[in-house]
């Protein structure tokens, strides 16, 4: 009788584990783009309404999210989980209709399983005691010490099984967001490299030049990287001898010219070209032309500050 019951329980446990493993690794097959958009938007809560998914909501915030999901699905660059991760990165974990299966959020999945296992074990223990008390009326007190050890082992086993089961459920049921990192899930993209390069620029020119170089490896026509790498190389070269300065001057003029060719509306390249042509090439007339064209293109404050006084100096030099 006891052996048969054990076989049944073993079969149930094996079947449960098998189903969970199957569910977590199965391939659901290809979906159409609209299917993917629907599936993703059903996983995301509308951030401005109560209890509605983006899929059903007609709120403007939900519509904007739906449009973004459609755009990312159309681009085809991200998986469903990555699209959900992008939205959760922006709006926070509260927009996930299924809580995450990792980190602190995983407790939502782990705790119910843990409590279920612990309470089941406690009930089983209680029933066993009552059964013993009913059938064996008189038990010698010397035998009380032995169950203590098995009781402690039982507690440990119960907690281990509860936590392990909970983690398994969390991994299977919770949303896994592959892009997320402790810093917020921003990818190591050219945008990130450019921001790091700008941050390093004033204090660590060598690192900034390397970072701009990495951007150009990924995107050879990146105008910002072309411009600022050339500018920093020229600034660095000024402390060296004539030969190095001359080589840097040639490569800087080429790179800035290339940046202007790629984007003639980009003021920074025009301003730097004006500065370099004057300070390192001694050509005031060309410099004035480049600086004026830069100022016409509304440069950011940092760059404007570099050339506004230069423009007046050039004017004075050319007229005097």
């Amino acid at each position, binding site marked *: 009788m006891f052996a048969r019951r054990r076989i049944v329980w073993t079969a149930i446990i094996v079947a449960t584990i098998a189903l969970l493993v199957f569910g977590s690794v199965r391939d659901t097959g290809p979906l159409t783009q609209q299917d993917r958009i629907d599936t993703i938007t059903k996983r995301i809560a509308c*951030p*401005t309404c109560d209890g509605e998914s983006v899929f059903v909501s007609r709120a*403007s*915030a939900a*519509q*904007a*999210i739906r*449009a*973004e999901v459609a*755009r990312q699905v159309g681009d085809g660059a991200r998986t469903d989980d990555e699209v959900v991760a992008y*939205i959760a*990165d*922006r*709006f*926070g974990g509260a927009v996930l209709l299924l809580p995450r299966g990792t980190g602190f959020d995983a407790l939502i999945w782990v705790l119910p399983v843990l409590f279920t296992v612990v309470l089941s074990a*406690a009930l089983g*223990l209680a029933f066993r005691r009552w059964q013993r008390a009913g059938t064996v009326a008189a038990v010698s007190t010397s035998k009380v010490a032995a169950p203590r050890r098995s*009781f402690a082992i039982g*507690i440990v086993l119960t907690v281990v099984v509860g936590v392990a089961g909970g983690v398994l459920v969390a991994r299977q049921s919770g949303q896994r967001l592959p892009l997320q990192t402790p*810093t*917020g*899930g*921003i990818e190591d993209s050219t*945008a*990130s490299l*450019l*921001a*790091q390069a*700008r*941050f390093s*620029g004033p204090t660590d020119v060598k690192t900034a030049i390397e970072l701009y170089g990495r951007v150009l490896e990924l995107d050879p026509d990146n105008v*910002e990287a072309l411009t600022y790498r050339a500018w920093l190389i020229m600034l660095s070269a000024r402390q060296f001898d004539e030969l190095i300065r001359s080589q840097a001057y040639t490569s800087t003029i080429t790179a800035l010219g290339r940046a202007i060719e790629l984007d003639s*509306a*980009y*003021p*920074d390249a025009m301003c730097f070209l004006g500065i370099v042509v004057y300070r390192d090439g001694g050509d005031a007339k060309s410099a004035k032309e480049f600086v004026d064209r830069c100022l016409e293109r509304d*440069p*950011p*404050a*940092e*760059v404007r*500050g570099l050339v506004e006084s230069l423009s007046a100096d050039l004017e004075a030099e050319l007229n005097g």
Partner: protein
Amino acid sequence: MKPAKVGAAAVAVVLVAFIAVLVVSDGDTGVGARSPLLGQPAPAIVTTTIDDAPFDLARRKGSWVVFNFFNSTCVPCIAEHSSLVRFVADEAERVDGVEFFTVVNDDADDAVRSFFTANDGKWPKLRDDDGSIAVAFGVAKVPETWIIDPNGFVRLRILGAVVDGVLEEQMAQLRSTQGS
């Protein structure tokens, strides 16, 4: 140890841990709101103004940039407008003054034009017709104000209407930490 004592001890441990978390956790007391974007490179934004001028956030590096998400029918947006006008006027007198942009949220160009004609504010107004800028910043409700530093990193998010002096104070703090 008896099972009852074990249970009581477990409950006590959980309660103590819970109280400890409440005691040591720091609540939100400042004007800045949380966002995973804080300290990260700002999202790439390419759009046009309601006057059809092109706008590319990447081209504004080197300046402090302030985005104010706005809708002409939103009451808090209307309430904060005079503070924004004063802030922008003060910043215009600085060499490193911020570049201020309104991001139009779910509103018509004409309605926005009428609002600004009636209430002043001559800064550029950016279109966000498909809501992609709002989604990129995680903006669900307006108004929201975001500050991006000259290196292109997101530095501050303010939820709701700003009152007089708040943006001035925050910019002063940010400039002192940035060293500009």
